[in-house]
C-alpha cells in the first residue's frame, strides 16, 4: 500500500470537494446531488463554460472555476470520467439560455460520458458544443492528432476559453476561439516515479530505480520510450525538440510557457528545467510572453513534469492577458 494522508479511501473524492468548497469562501458552490461546482452568480445571457474529468489531478479541474475562467467543473472518481447525470446537472446549473461549452481532455471515458450528457441536454432544450483537448505530442503521431491525450495544456485552453466566454456572446464564437487555443497548444510529460489510486493503494505503473518514462501520460499511460535517467538539460532538449517541430513553432513566434509539476517534483527541478527551456527557445528565436510554473495538473504523487507551449496570435493574446481569478490560478 502506498502511503497517503487520507481517511476512508472511498471518501477521497467527496472530502476533496468539501475542502475545496471551504477554501473558496463562497466563490464557488456545489451543484445539488452532483460532484460538481459552479460560480454562484453567472451573468444572465452568458455562454456557460463547463470543464471536467476524473478526480486525482488537483487542482484541475474544479480549481479553475472562477472569474474569467470556467463557470463550472464536474469531477468523476479518481482517474475516471464523471457520469452523464452529473455532467447534466452541472450543465443545467450553467445554462442561461446561451448554451454551454464542454471543455475536457480527450479520453474515451470522458468523450462517451460528455456525449451522452450532451444528448440528454439537447432533449431538455440546452445547446452544447464540445472542445476536446489533445495537446500531448507523445501520445499519437500528428496525423492521428485526435487520438492524442489531453494533459497540462488544458490550463492554457481553459484560460483562453474562460476569457472568451466572458467577452463573447455566442456559443459558436466561444467554441471557435477555444478550439483555436486547443489547436495552438502542445505539451509533453516525463515521469520518474508513479502516482497511485487511493482505493487500490497501488502505483499505476512500475518503473526501475534509474529509469525515466519519456512522454508519460497523466494516468501512467506509456509514452514514447523508457530510458536511463539523464541530466535535466539533455532531457529538456529532447522534449522541446518534439514539441517545437510538432506544431511547428517557428522563429518569431510568441508563446506562453507552462512547466507543470505532475505531483512530487520540486520547484527546484522545475526551475532548472525552465532555464534550459528558455535557452532553447531563445536560440530558436521564439519569444516567451508569459510563464506559469507549478502544480496545476497532477497525477497524485507522480514525480515528473510536463512542458506546454501555447502559440499566441493577436486574438489569443488578448484573451490570455485578461485578468482571471480562481482558487488555483490568478492573473492580474
Amino acid at each position: 500500500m502506498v502511503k497517503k494522508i487520507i481517511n476512508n479511501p472511498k471518501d477521497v473524492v467527496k472530502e476533496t470537494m468539501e475542502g475545496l468548497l471551504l477554501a473558496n469562501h463562497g466563490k464557488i458552490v456545489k451543484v445539488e446531488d452532483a460532484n460538481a461546482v459552479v460560480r454562484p452568480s453567472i451573468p444572465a445571457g452568458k455562454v456557460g463554460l463547463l470543464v471536467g474529468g476524473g478526480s486525482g489531478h488537483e487542482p484541475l479541474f474544479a480549481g479553475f472555476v472562477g472569474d474569467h475562467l470556467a463557470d463550472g467543473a464536474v469531477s468523476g472518481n479518481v482517474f475516471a470520467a464523471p457520469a452523464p447525470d452529473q455532467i447534466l446537472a452541472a450543465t443545467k446549473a450553467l445554462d442561461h439560455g446561451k448554451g454551454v461549452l464542454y471543455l475536457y481532455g480527450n479520453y474515451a471515458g470522458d468523450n462517451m460520458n460528455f456525449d451522452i450528457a450532451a444528448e440528454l441536454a439537447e432533449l431538455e432544450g440546452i445547446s452544447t458544443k464540445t472542445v476536446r483537448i489533445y495537446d500531448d505530442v507523445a501520445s499519437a503521431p500528428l496525423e492521428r492528432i485526435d487520438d492524442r491525450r489531453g494533459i497540462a495544456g488544458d490550463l492554457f485552453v481553459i484560460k483562453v476559453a474562460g476569457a472568451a466566454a466572458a467577452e463573447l456572446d455566442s456559443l459558436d464564437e466561444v467554441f471557435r476561439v477555444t478550439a483555436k487555443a486547443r489547436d495552438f497548444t502542445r505539451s509533453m510529460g516525463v515521469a520518474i516515479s508513479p502516482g497511485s489510486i487511493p482505493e487500490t493503494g497501488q502505483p499505476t505503473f512500475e518503473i526501475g530505480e534509474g529509469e525515466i518514462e519519456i512522454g508519460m501520460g497523466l494516468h501512467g499511460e506509456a509514452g514514447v520510450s523508457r530510458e536511463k535517467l539523464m541530466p535535466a538539460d539533455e532531457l529538456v532538449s529532447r522534449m522541446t525538440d518534439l514539441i517545437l517541430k510538432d506544431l511547428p513553432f517557428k522563429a518569431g513566434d510568441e508563446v506562453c510557457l507552462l512547466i507543470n509539476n505532475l505531483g512530487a517534483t520540486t520547484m527546484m527541478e522545475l526551475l532548472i528545467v525552465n532555464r534550459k527551456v528558455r535557452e532553447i527557445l531563445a536560440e530558436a528565436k521564439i519569444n516567451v510572453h508569459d510563464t506559469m510554473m507549478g502544480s496545476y495538473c497532477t497525477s497524485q504523487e507522480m514525480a515528473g513534469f510536463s512542458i506546454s507551449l501555447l502559440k499566441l496570435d493577436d486574438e489569443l493574446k488578448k484573451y490570455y492577458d485578461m485578468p482571471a481569478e480562481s482558487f488555483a490560478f490568478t492573473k492580474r
Partner: protein
Amino acid sequence: MTIDSISLSQVKDAFHFIANRMVDSKDMLTQADQAIGDGDHGIGMARGFEAVNNMLEAKTLNNVEDVFFNTGTSLLASIGGASGAIFGSFFMGAGKALQGAEILNAAGYQKALEAGLAMVKKRGNASIGDKTMVDALEPAVDAANQYSGSSLEELAGLVAAASHEGMEKTKTFTAKIGKAKTLGERTLGHADPGAISITLIFEALKEYISSL
C-alpha cells in the same frame, strides 16, 4: 430438463447473482487492469454492481425490460469513466429491445444481446481486434444469432462460451482504444479487463439458470 425461460422474479435473482459475482471479482479485475491500464476497473465494476444490487432492492421493476434498463442506468451513473458508459449502454440497449417482456426466453435474450452490442458500438466505436469488451461481446452475439432452439439455458451456455473464447483472444491483441492503447505491444499476453467483465456477466447468468 432444460430451461426455456425464467420469470421476472428469477430475472431479478439472476441480476443479484451477477452483481454479487462482479463485486466478488473486484480484486481479480483490479489486477487484470493494473497489467495494462490504470487499475481502477475492479473498483468501478464493484461500485457499479453494488448500485445494481441496491436498485434491485429499492426500485419497482414491472418487467424484464425494467430490470435490464435500470441495471444500465445504475451502472452508467455509478461507475463513470469508459466502463460506465459502455456497460451502462449495453444494458440500456438490451433492455429497450425487451419491450416490456414479462419473462426472459431465448428469443428475448438474443434480441437483447444484439441491441446491447449495437449500443456499445455506437457509443464506443470499437471493432473486433481493438482489445476491448467488444472482442468478447460480438462473438457472443454471433453465437446467439446462430442458435435456433428454444432453450434459454442452452443459449446462455453458448453465449458464455463464445464470450470466454473471445476474451481469451484479446491476449493476442494490442490495445487500439482507451488508455491502454499507447502501451502497444506491452499489452500482449494480457486479456482486456472489459472483456473479462462481460464474460463474467454471461457466465454468471448461465450458472444461475443452470442452478434452477
